[in-house]
């Protein structure tokens, strides 16, 4: 039987092996070796087959890039579309107007709602409450799971209105949108969004009551930061260690390295080769004051001390961002004015452009070089999960010594829960390698 199982196997007395991590997007495994009570080796094994996006994007027209890049991830396609259009607009020297900018933010809010609700309710909450799946959770907590599914649906309905469908929406183009919505159609969703805002607050209250394993780490949190708003589509790259640089310096600051016997390229600080942490926890820790009023209130009411260095509290951070996304979506809907033109003219020129946006699971960086025919000559994509992978391994190294005395099944469950803190999207496989064990 080679159809692999998610079960834990004892390979040697002190070796933990999880063949398939479950309740994550995409497929990966975990390998841990312990000798004399010390953790000797931790490997996140990513066997997601490579799909070579950066290679086959070459020669494609820039207007095809948002649609193609979306297919890197079925959970957060809007993030890929947003980073792509902003990078390509930078290459063309084009800047869409404020209405387009606001509408893109609304689209991003919808994706945060859908993705965060999915992760909180169906993938992560079962860990805290001792269930093996969202479906099992639903059997005993139907009210909560129904709330989660309706929240997810509210995000999806907004995505469908703005983009035609929730997964791989079709409305986004370089320069703006193929078509912008009517105000009355947006307002038709208003009452559902109002319900969602209340439900998001209940979500934050619910997850704040979970038991969080006692664990903290000295993280370098990294995300975008904007002077006036919670980061989504633009801003500077900042970190809790004092970094504050333009997005165009991303590749000077961070470098993707290949670790021997590792399964994936790890993004690290270029200068000191250390790991860093991207995602909702980083965003809240570094942008607390930019949260909407009700999101800020939910964060304060949670009882978590912000900034939080406990990665298990990321589920609360995600719920607070769910409140933020609903509240901001309502404000954007109310302020929305139908633009006269759905997109700005883009005249072709050769050039290069980079952009980073905040995907639900963290900073997503794109850089493209195009020729004067509008064809891509070079593409680089750094997904949030490849930035968090090194950090996940570091977390496991720190976390494991404290739980080694427990039964193996329990250790494994806790390790998986720790990995799920990062909402890893392993299908973002642009940079994942296949593990090859060196037996020499």
């Amino acid at each position, binding site marked *: *039987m*080679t*159809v692999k*199982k*998610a079960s834990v196997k004892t390979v040697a007395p002190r070796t933990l092996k999880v063949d*398939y*991590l*479950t*309740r*994550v*997007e995409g*497929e990966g495994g975990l390998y841990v070796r312990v000798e004399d009570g010390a953790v000797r080796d931790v490997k996140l094994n990513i*066997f*997601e*087959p*490579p*799909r*070579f996006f*950066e*290679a*086959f994007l070459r020669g*494609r*027209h820039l207007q*095809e890039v948002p*649609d*193609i890049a979306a*297919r890197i*991830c*079925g*959970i957060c*396609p809007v993030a890929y579309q947003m980073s792509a259009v902003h990078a390509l607009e930078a290459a063309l020297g084009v800047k869409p107007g404020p209405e387009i900018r606001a509408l893109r933010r609304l689209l991003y809010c919808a994706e945060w709602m859908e993705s965060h609700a*999915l992760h909180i309710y169906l993938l992560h909450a*079962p860990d805290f409450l001792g269930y*093996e*799946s*969202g*479906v099992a959770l639903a059997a005993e907590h139907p009210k909560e*799971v129904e709330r989660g*599914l309706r929240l*997810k*649906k509210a995000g*999806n309905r907004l995505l469908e209105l703005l983009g*035609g*469908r*929730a*997964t*791989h929406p*079709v*409305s986004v*183009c370089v320069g703006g949108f*193929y*078509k912008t919505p009517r105000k009355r159609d947006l307002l038709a969703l208003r009452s559902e969004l109002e319900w969602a805002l209340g439900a998001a607050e209940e979500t934050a209250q619910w997850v704040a009551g979970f038991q969080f394993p006692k664990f903290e780490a000295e993280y370098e949190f990294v995300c975008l930061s904007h002077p006036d708003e919670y980061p989504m589509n633009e801003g500077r790259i900042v970190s809790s260690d004092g970094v504050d640089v333009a997005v165009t310096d991303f590749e000077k600051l961070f470098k993707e390295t290949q670790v021997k016997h590792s399964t994936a*390229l790890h993004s690290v600080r270029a200068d000191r080769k250390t790991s860093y942490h991207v995602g909702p926890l980083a965003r809240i820790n570094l942008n607390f004051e930019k949260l909407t009023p009700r999101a800020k209130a939910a964060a304060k009411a949670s009882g978590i001390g912000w900034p939080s260095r406990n990665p298990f509290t990321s589920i609360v951070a995600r719920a607070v961002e769910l409140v933020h996304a609903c509240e901001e979506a309502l404000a954007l809907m109310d302020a929305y004015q139908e633009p006269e033109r759905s997109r700005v003219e883009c005249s072709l020129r050769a050039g290069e452009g980079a952009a980073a946006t905040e995907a639900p699971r963290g900073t997503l960086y794109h850089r493209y070089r195009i020729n004067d025919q509008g064809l891509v000559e070079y593409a680089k994509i750094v997904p949030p999960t490849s930035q968090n992978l090194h950090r996940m391994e570091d977390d496991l190294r720190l976390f494991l010594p404290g739980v080694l005395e427990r039964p193996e099944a329990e250790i494994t469950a806790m390790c*998986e829960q720790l990995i799920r803190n990062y909402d890893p*999207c392993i*299908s973002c*496989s*642009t940079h994942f*390698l*296949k593990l090859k064990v060196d037996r020499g």
Partner: protein
Amino acid sequence: MAAGNNGSEKPRLAVFKFASCDGCQLALLSLEDELVALAGAVEIAYFLEARTQTSEGPYDVALVEGSITTPEDRQRIQEVRRQAKYLVTIGACATAGGIQALRNWKDVEEFTRTVYATPRYIETLAESLPVSAHVKVDFQLNGCPINKYQLLEVLTALLIGRTPHLPAHSVCVECKRRGAVCVMVAQGTPCLGPLTHAGCGAICPAFRRGCYGCFGPMEAPNADALTTQLQAAGATPEQIVRMLRGFTGFAEAFRKASERWEKTSP
């Protein structure tokens, strides 16, 4: 031909992933109103994205997402076939090879060198092929991504033992039914709608852009007629090749048409 076992046991559903973005299996979790009922009607025996517990085959219905791109996956799909009474491919990757099938016209070793610093760590096949190139497929669902209601229709039909009712016509029919304005006639925008399998609801024309063929070719499409018309309207052979080589570019009708046009470009 009901997929369920006789007696009280619930039919067993499994979901397998190969090279893909997860977007099609997400359709199951996006059945927000039906998910809990579905989980009551079937045993979700293997679905790594959704649950930790898994149970061994055989399965009544196996949903397969993703294309076959590695030597290991070439073996694994054989095992999935052995374990599955009905094997249903979900989406453009499993059904047509997906966007990653663009490698099929290129040198995959050059691709590997381009993306990875140490290419020798990468094990991959020269081509990204649909599941049907490796094993018998009982039913195919088109789309990049699939339409979740079509998935529900296929599951329901298999569970009660009838043939799934899915439209076989082109996107053009959906476009007319929706009352959308034809983007080719009104705006001169190139559109693959006349060749493409229905199922999306003609969303691209409704958003004033041309269909990019993500549901793949319909039965007996006339690619020559459409692409000749596109050229007459000003598209270059290179543009026509790119249009045909999208998310379902390796599906036979699109592949043959793009290869014909490639020969005409200088």
